[in-house]
C-alpha cells in the first residue's frame, strides 16, 4: 500500500494539498500517482502569478510512459513553482510529498480546503479504481 500522510488533503485526480499555515497551500501528486506513472522525466509547472480555477489543468507531468495533466485542487493564484523539478523531475518519484512538490498556491477561499478528501476518503478512491 502506498504512503498516505494523514495531515494532507487529497483530490480524486490524485493531487495532495498541504496547508502551510500562512495562507498558502502546497500541491503535489500522491505516492500512488507517481507509482502508477512510472519514472518521471519532465515537469511543466504553472508560472507564478497565474490565476487558476478549481480543477483547472495547470501542470503536466511526463513519465517514461505518458503525459498526465495535474489539476489545481482549488481556485487561487500560483505563488511559486518548484524550480528544482526542471533538473530533477524524479524527485516526484523519490519524494512525492517532500522534494517532489509541484507548486504553491494562495487560494481564493481557504475554506474550500475542507471540501477536499481526507486520507481515508482518498484511499477509498484508489481502492475503487483498482
Amino acid at each position, binding site marked *: 500500500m502506498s504512503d498516505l500522510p494523514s495531515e494532507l488533503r487529497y483530490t480524486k485526480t490524485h493531487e495532495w494539498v498541504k496547508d502551510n499555515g500562512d495562507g498558502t497551500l502546497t500541491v503535489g501528486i500522491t505516492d500512488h500517482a507517481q507509482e502508477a506513472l*512510472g*519514472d518521471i522525466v*519532465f515537469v*511543466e509547472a504553472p508560472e507564478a502569478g497565474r490565476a487558476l480555477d478549481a480543477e483547472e489543468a495547470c501542470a503536466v507531468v*511526463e513519465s*517514461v*510512459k*505518458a503525459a498526465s495533466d495535474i489539476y489545481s485542487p482549488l481556485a487561487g493564484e500560483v505563488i511559486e513553482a518548484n524550480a528544482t523539478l526542471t533538473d530533477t523531475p524524479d524527485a516526484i518519484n523519490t519524494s512525492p510529498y517532500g522534494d517532489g512538490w509541484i507548486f504553491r498556491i494562495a487560494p481564493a477561499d481557504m475554506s474550500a480546503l475542507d471540501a477536499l478528501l481526507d486520507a481515508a476518503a482518498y484511499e477509498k478512491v484508489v481502492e475503487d479504481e483498482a
Partner: protein
Amino acid sequence: MGRHTPLYSQHARLGARIVPFGGWDMPLHYGSQIEEHHAVRRAAGMFDVSHMRPVDIEGEDAQSFLRRLLANDVAKLQSPGKALYSCMLNPAGGVVDDLIVYARGPNRYRLVVNAGTADKDIAWMREHAQGAALDIRPRDDLAMIAVQGPEARARTEPLLPEDLRAAAMQLQPFFGAEGAHWFVGRTGYTGEDGFEIMLPAEQAPELWQALIDAGVQPCGLGARDTLRLEAGMNLYGQDMDDEIGPLESGLAWTLAWEPADRDFIGREALTKLRQDPERRVFVGLLLTGRGVIRNHQKVLVEGREVGEITSGGFSPTLERSIALARVAPGIGDTCEVEIRGKPVAARLVKPPFVRNGKIRIDL
C-alpha cells in the same frame, strides 16, 4: 486476461507491473524502467520475449518459398547459423511483419515473428506455401529470453548447456548456434551485444533464476522500447504496418533488389514507390526544446505540417527526448514538434542515437 508466458509467475513474484501486449500479459517494468534501461547499457539485463513466436520452415522448397515470401534474400545466408532481418510484405508493399530468419542448414530455417502478429503471419505463410514441399511449424513449445548488455554474454556463458557453450561464445554478431534442445543467437533489440536464447518452455524458469543469481537485471517492455528507440530500431505497428512499407520507414537497407529476377511479394509496388520523388523519408529527431515527444504528434516546419512522429519518448541515455518520424522529403535540418498544441524545436539526426553504450549523435 491475456496469455501467460512460461515465466509469468517469475514476473509476478518480482513485483512486475503487468500490462496487456499483443494478446499477452507482459511485464512493463519491475520497479524502475530507467534503471532497467541503464542496466542493459552498462552491464546486463534480460527480457522475457517468450511471447514472440519461433516458426520453423523446413523442406525441399523452403529456400525458394522464403525467397518469394521475404523482401530480404535468404540466399545471402551462406554460412550455417547466419541470421537475416527482413520484412514480409503484402502485394501493395505494406509490411505484414518484420522478422529475423536464421539459416539452420540447407532448406532449414527458423523465423522469429512478433507476438501480436504471429497468428496472422502463420496464416499468411500457409496461404503462400500451398503446394510447396515444406513444413511450417510454429514452436509454441519454446520460451525465449533475451540477455543484453556489455556483460550479457559473459554472465550467460556458464549457464549454457555444455553441448552449446563453446559454439555460442564463438558466435559472430547476427549468427546463431544450436545444441540438442537450445538455440542461441547473438542478436537482440537493444543496440547492445548479447544473446537471444530459445529453450524448452519448462526449462525457462530455471534459466531465468540462474541469470538473476548471475546479476542480470530483469527488464520489462518499457525499457525494451526505450532501448530499441535509442538504437534506432523499428517497432512493427508503430513505425511501419500493413499500409506503410519499408521505403518510408527507414528499412530500404533490408530490401534485396538483386538478383533482379527474384520476384518477392511486394516487389512491384515498391519498385514504383522507389521512383516517387515525393516519397516520405524516415528520420530521427532530437528535441532541442523542453518536453517529451510522443507517438502521433505532428512535425511542423514554419507552422506547416510536414509529417508525424511514429515513435517518440524519453531517452534515458541522452536524458533528452528523441523520436523516429516520417516526414516530407527535403525539409532541412530543423523542425518543430507540436506538443500539446505548442511547437517545440527539434533537430533532424541520423539514427542510431545510441549503440554499444555510446552516444552516436551530436547533442
